[in-house]
């Protein structure tokens, strides 16, 4: 009995903090993650950004096409990914509009059309009032078919889009009236969250016509691994997650200032919570491993 009581006392005392840590209720972790994001947002933490080679390559790709040339912007994402991708889209539209590019909007995701409309309403119309629909920009909207849409547009745009999103015939819109296929564009940019997206644009547009236009992409952090093999030979530039968005915003605003910087500043705003949350992630992984080692040595000591 004495031995049993001693053993119990040892176990009670030895039921150390680290052992309890290994069994931590995950809701404490959820709370820590929530606070690590909420507090920096409330405190408006901001940090400087230094452009990476990929973001600079994207900026340079847009700068390299002739001013006034037509570009195709494909909004291949939905509201679930808008937090990462909308900042890229806004900066890209402002960049193209500042260079007076003719812009054709389209979407391979059903909800992408709404994201494009939102960008037109918040960036294009207020800050580039000289842009006229049908003449300087066209919203083609969404069409079902995934990569089939790209494949058909590669040879016959009017067959895929007989009308634009508002129902106007393409032949009545000066910007796109003479466009036959994708070679009419100088740049194709896909802001993509998954399938279909930038990968399909490389496969079905750049593949058959590698020299006809430049392809750049913006993608979520999750998807970027799939796109890395295409950079830089098949995709001239790539914006990687919200960090790429923040870097690109900085480059665009540096050369083409905008009256309300917050319109193309959401990427930099969302980088604020990243520092604390990332340090929390590292801390959690380290703690988990410490708990594992402590558990092992307790087991060995027994």
């Amino acid at each position: 009995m004495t031995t049993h009581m001693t053993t119990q006392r040892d176990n009670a005392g030895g039921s150390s903090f680290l052992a309890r840590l290994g069994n931590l209720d995950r809701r404490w972790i959820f709370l820590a993650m929530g606070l690590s994001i909420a507090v920096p947002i409330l405190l408006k933490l901001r940090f400087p950004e230094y452009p990476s080679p990929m973001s600079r390559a994207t900026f340079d790709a847009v700068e390299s096409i002739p001013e006034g040339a037509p570009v195709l912007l494909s909004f291949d994402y939905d509201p679930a990914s808008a937090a990462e991708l909308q900042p890229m889209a806004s900066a890209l539209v402002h960049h193209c509009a500042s260079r007076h590019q003719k812009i054709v909007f389209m979407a391979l995701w059903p909800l992408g059309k709404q994201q494009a409309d939102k960008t037109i309403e918040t960036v294009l119309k207020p800050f580039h009032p000289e842009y006229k629909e049908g003449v300087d920009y066209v919203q083609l909207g969404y069409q079902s078919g995934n990569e089939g849409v790209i494949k058909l547009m590669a040879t016959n745009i009017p067959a895929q889009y007989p009308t634009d999103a508002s129902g106007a015939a393409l032949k009545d819109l000066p910007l796109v009236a003479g466009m036959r296929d994708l070679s009419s564009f100088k740049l194709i940019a896909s802001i993509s969250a998954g399938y279909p997206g930038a990968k399909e644009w490389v496969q079905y547009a750049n593949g058959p016509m590698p020299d006809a236009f430049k392809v750049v992409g913006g993608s979520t952090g999750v998807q970027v691994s799939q796109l890395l093999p295409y950079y830089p030979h098949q995709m001239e530039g790539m914006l990687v997650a919200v960090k790429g968005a923040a870097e690109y915003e900085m480059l665009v605003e540096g050369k083409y200032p905008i009256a309300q910087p917050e319109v193309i500043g959401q990427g930099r705003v969302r980088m604020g919570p990243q520092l604390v949350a990332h340090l929390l992630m590292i801390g959690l992984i380290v703690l988990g491993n410490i708990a594992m080692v402590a558990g092992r040595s307790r087991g060995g000591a027994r």
Partner: protein
Amino acid sequence: MNASNTDSNRNSPAPRYTLLWISLVVLSGSLLVLRAAMAAQGDGGAAAADPAAQSLWTTVGIWTAAILTIGVFSFLYRDNPLYKVCESVLIGVSAAYWMVNGFWTSLVPQLFGKLMPGLVREYALPSMPVSTTPGLDFALACVPLILGIMLVWRLAPKGGWISVWPIAMIIGVTAGLKLVSSIESDFMAQLGATMRPLVVMNGGFDFWGTMAALVGVVGVLTVLTYFFFSVEHKGAVGKTARVGVWFLMITFGSAFGLTVMGRITLLAQRFEFLFKDWLHIS
């Protein structure tokens, strides 16, 4: 916090906790209502000049979005009826959204617009271009119409096997598209991108450029060796495959780091909505 909420928990200290939660909810709700009322009055001048700010439907919308957001977040504590309601609404709304979108963007202009162009032009798309070959368009549009009916027949209690015909067409088109594109963009182009000069000269010997080229070639070859499962991974092949595994571990570690950034951004955006658009405290 305890992971389990058993009946025993509910009986002993539960009434105290229930009272605490009710008080917190009532206090928070009162603060929010007071805040909303003060916001409407406080910036009444500016708000009155901007009709959107005072729009009832916008206010109802923001509150609806906030309640739905909190409902989904409540799942983090535990599964509950509010979360289940949010989930059910999402399923119903998203299914309808995709269907409506597909109908108006694809079926109306590309199918019905070819089958009955006059009707579509009169009632839905007045600016739809007039075809120079209406007869041919009609005949060609009959094919997807029939195939579409066959596809939907899958839901019928009898004769659902006929849906295999349109499914076969979908699979055939996809296979045909992917066969050429994957070989062109994902095979030949990737091989071309790998087969670059190993010794990089940039006005002189470029050490880091050469290292990068070597890493690229060694990485691709060793990872491909790892995936070659028809040869046993022993000896030289085994050692090569092991190096490939190291490359893969670095690849996945980097992918994890990028994924974390993406997930955190999604959460940050929801918090921004709650603080800025709903509570006006940021």
